[in-house]
């Protein structure tokens, strides 16, 4: 068993959640690694695309932004935002979005807009971008978070991107036809949502992490009773990630 970093196990844990053929809406950073590792190993027929309009780029070099010229190189199609959203929302496609945020609540609702008062925020973040749309309209989403109490909060200061809203069937009642967060992947483990209540629970903790440690770093009640230890990254996953995907450790650090 090789050593691996938290970033590596995060990317690999998220990548394992992808089914072959899924159409992957990637942001940058870890989400790019997860999408690419999935395509290399588990989902050869999956396609990575970007909200900017780049569809299925060669990714010889890792893009650092969704508008990086590297997302326009070797693609099957260079288009624009309208076209990318047409893919994201398509009812015939299983589009999976990788999202991140500053705050998350127990139902997977995200804040990427502001802390404190919206009009005079104590901290302003970039805004909802395309994450709001992916969270609303994609087939499903996988969320990356740093596992910190101040980020896992009972209620987000600003609800930028809809998760399961207030849980139960509230998402459907709000008017959404599909979608919702499938998992939250953090530096401590993988959270999922109860099928009925849509409340978050711990599904996997990484080797070396105690379930109790996850609870302590979560700002709301988290059920850890169903959790199991995650399968550590295997050689193939690590080699693919390190040698083929991010040899310059641009994102892996």
């Amino acid at each position, binding site marked *: 068993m090789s050593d691996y970093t938290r970033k590596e196990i995060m990317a690999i844990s998220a990548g394992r959640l992808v089914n072959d053929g899924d159409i992957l809406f990637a942001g940058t950073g870890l989400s790019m690694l997860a999408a690419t590792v999935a395509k290399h190993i588990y989902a050869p027929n999956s396609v990575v695309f970007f909200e*900017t309009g*780049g569809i299925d780029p060669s990714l010889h070099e890792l893009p650092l932004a969704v508008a*990086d*010229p590297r997302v326009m190189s070797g693609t099957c199609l260079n288009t624009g*935002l309208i076209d990318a959203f047409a893919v994201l929302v398509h009812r015939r496609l299983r589009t999976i979005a990788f999202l991140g945020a500053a705050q998350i609540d127990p139902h997977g609702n995200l804040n990427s807009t502001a802390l404190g008062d919206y009009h005079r925020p104590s901290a302003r973040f970039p805004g*909802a*971008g*395309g994450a709001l749309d992916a969270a*609303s309209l994609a087939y499903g989403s996988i969320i990356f978070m740093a596992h910190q109490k101040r980020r896992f909060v009972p209620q987000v200061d600003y609800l930028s991107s809809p998760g399961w809203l207030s849980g139960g069937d509230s998402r459907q009642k709000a*008017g959404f036809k599909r979608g919702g967060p499938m998992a939250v992947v953090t530096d401590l483990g993988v959270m999922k949502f109860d099928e009925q209540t849509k409340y978050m629970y711990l599904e996997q903790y990484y080797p070396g992490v105690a379930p109790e440690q996850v609870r302590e770093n979560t700002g709301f009640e988290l059920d850890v009773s169903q959790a199991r230890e995650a399968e550590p990254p295997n050689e193939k996953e690590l080699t693919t990630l390190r040698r083929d995907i991010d040899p310059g450790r641009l994102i892996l650090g």
Partner: protein
Amino acid sequence: MEFTPSMQKKLMSTAEAVERFVPDGAMVSLGGFTVNRNPMLITREIIRAGRRDLHLAVHSHGQALDLLIGAGCVSKVELAYGGVARFAPTGIRFRAAASRGDILVEDYSNFHMSLRFLAGSLGLPFIPSRSGLGTDVLEKWGFGPEVRGQGKIPEKKMVVDQNPFAEEEDPVVLLPALEPDVTLLHAQCVGTGGTVRIKGLTFLDVEQARASDAVIVTCEEIVPEDYLRQDPDQNTLPSFLVDAVIPAPVGAHPTACHQYYDYDPTHLKLYRDYASSDDGFQRYLEEWVLPFQTQEEYLAKVGAPDLERIKANRVLGYAPGLDRR
């Protein structure tokens, strides 16, 4: 190269273009996306000209947005995302101005802004979507009653209504169209007849341009119109939608221009460092924005080694091996 008479009229200096099409208080839409094809030459000219009270309408924007806000040109922004990717995940001067209440900020999503520009480009008064149901983007309006209903700001940010074609309950979000006063674009080339060609992703540039009263285009190169008309499938805008054309080699620096140059990590980090304090930002303006009357002077300041480093590989479209850490 010979220009058509109508193209001749569009060729002008940045100063004239800003003078004619970007008055104080204008609603301005910026082409490009975060680190790509930002209209930087025009942005610097707007700052030099001391424009005030601009209302920016953008989807995901980075360097030009941050610079205009930092320089005090902006009073209102509607946007989906304000950042320069990993170089400044939240735009530094944008964050500072928003936190201080120096600017009014109204939040949408990228699909919202895409649909709003699309609606503006097709003369649709509004456009429906299901994106954002149940979120604070519906509930929290950044522009207060003191500005709503004035100029191009609609009375309502958005409206939730029932889909009239559904039998059961089916709420949709109605979004008002955007019709900016002017859109600023940076393109790879413009023909001697005024036809515009953008290579690589077009982002939302086409919809933004069509939704606007006026369009200013800076470009890497002017090329023979005949060349562009040999493959019109690749062209982006007809000349009759463009008001001003300004040749601007490396005009998107420090952001990228596909097939011409990459983004400039060195400069973006330099900007981040300067912008992290009010004084530093002022120094940035004094060193990198205010002194230059021409693009040539600006490029001399950037320097040949930096320009060489970011030069794009013509096949790949970016600078392979560029140190981006």
